[in-house]
């Protein structure tokens, strides 16, 4: 097999926050009945996490699971393991009405970190990102300027941002503009 390459191959930028493309991340879109026990077990086996509640992101490093909608999860696993985990999940759910698809290559993942990380995202997404409204453990799917994106916080100063692979270059440039030196807002 040839060496896989992520959309921007670890590009990074330092401004009022640090912006990095995270490289390859195993991602599985899982649609099904989130209250189903078989599904919950498949998620637990793949990630060690329970099925997240509304707008929850249960992520540790490159493994975890995010709530995407009432019938959709984003399962995060190591890139190298994605085919095996997908086969496990598909196997476990073979008797249930569900859909699991590998979307690792369909997406790009960024990390935005630093004390101004909230502000950088706050320039692009029409979302209340003040600490009392948005916390680590929560996920929001919204708009990053003109494209769709999802983000959650790994800790108080770090966001993970997911977008479509084709828009990776646009989103990276957007984040660079939003993180340009001298653009601190000082709102949060």
């Amino acid at each position: 097999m040839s060496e896989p390459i992520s959309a921007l191959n670890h590009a990074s930028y330092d401004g009022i926050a640090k912006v990095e493309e995270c490289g390859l991340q195993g991602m599985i879109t899982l649609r099904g009945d989130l209250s189903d026990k078989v599904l919950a077990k498949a998620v637990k086996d793949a990630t060690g996490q329970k099925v997240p509640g509304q707008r929850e992101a249960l992520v540790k490093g490159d493994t975890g699971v995010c709530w995407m909608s009432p019938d959709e999860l984003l399962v995060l696993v190591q890139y190298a393991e994605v085919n095996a985990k997908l086969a496990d999940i598909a196997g476990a759910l073979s008797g249930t009405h569900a859909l699991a698809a590998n979307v690792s290559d369909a997406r790009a993942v960024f990390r935005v970190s630093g004390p101004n990380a909230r502000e950088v995202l706050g320039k692009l997404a029409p979302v209340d990102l003040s600490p009392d409204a948005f916390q680590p453990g929560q996920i929001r799917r919204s708009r990053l300027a003109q494209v769709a994106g999802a983000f959650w916080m790994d800790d108080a100063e770090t966001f993970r941002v997911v977008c479509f692979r084709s828009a990776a270059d646009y989103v990276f440039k957007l984040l660079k503009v939003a993180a340009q030196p001298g653009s601190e807002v000082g709102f949060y």
Partner: protein
Amino acid sequence: MLTLKCPFTGAMLDETELHCGGEAHRKRFGPGSSDEDFETYMFVRENRKGVHFELWLHAYGIGKWFIAARDTETLEVYGTYPAQTTEPPQDIKDAITAKRPGWSWREFE
């Protein structure tokens, strides 16, 4: 620039995240239906000053459709609820009645 509460995520959504799908609670008429029924289904739309039911999609987001019961005159939002229903839930109807006694909209009141 409206803001609507998404009944699926519980989040307040900005109008720029949303796409409006027009009149809600339409009944589909397919093959075999009369010209009149098909015309009504396809082309005739409520255009009220006052209480209105509209489909909205969280387009930049979770991709789910919901219905907003709102007032096109005052911009008041009486409530939002998932689109998987053929008529407005009772609590939404009650909320409207509290503000607009005697309201009616198509077959609902």
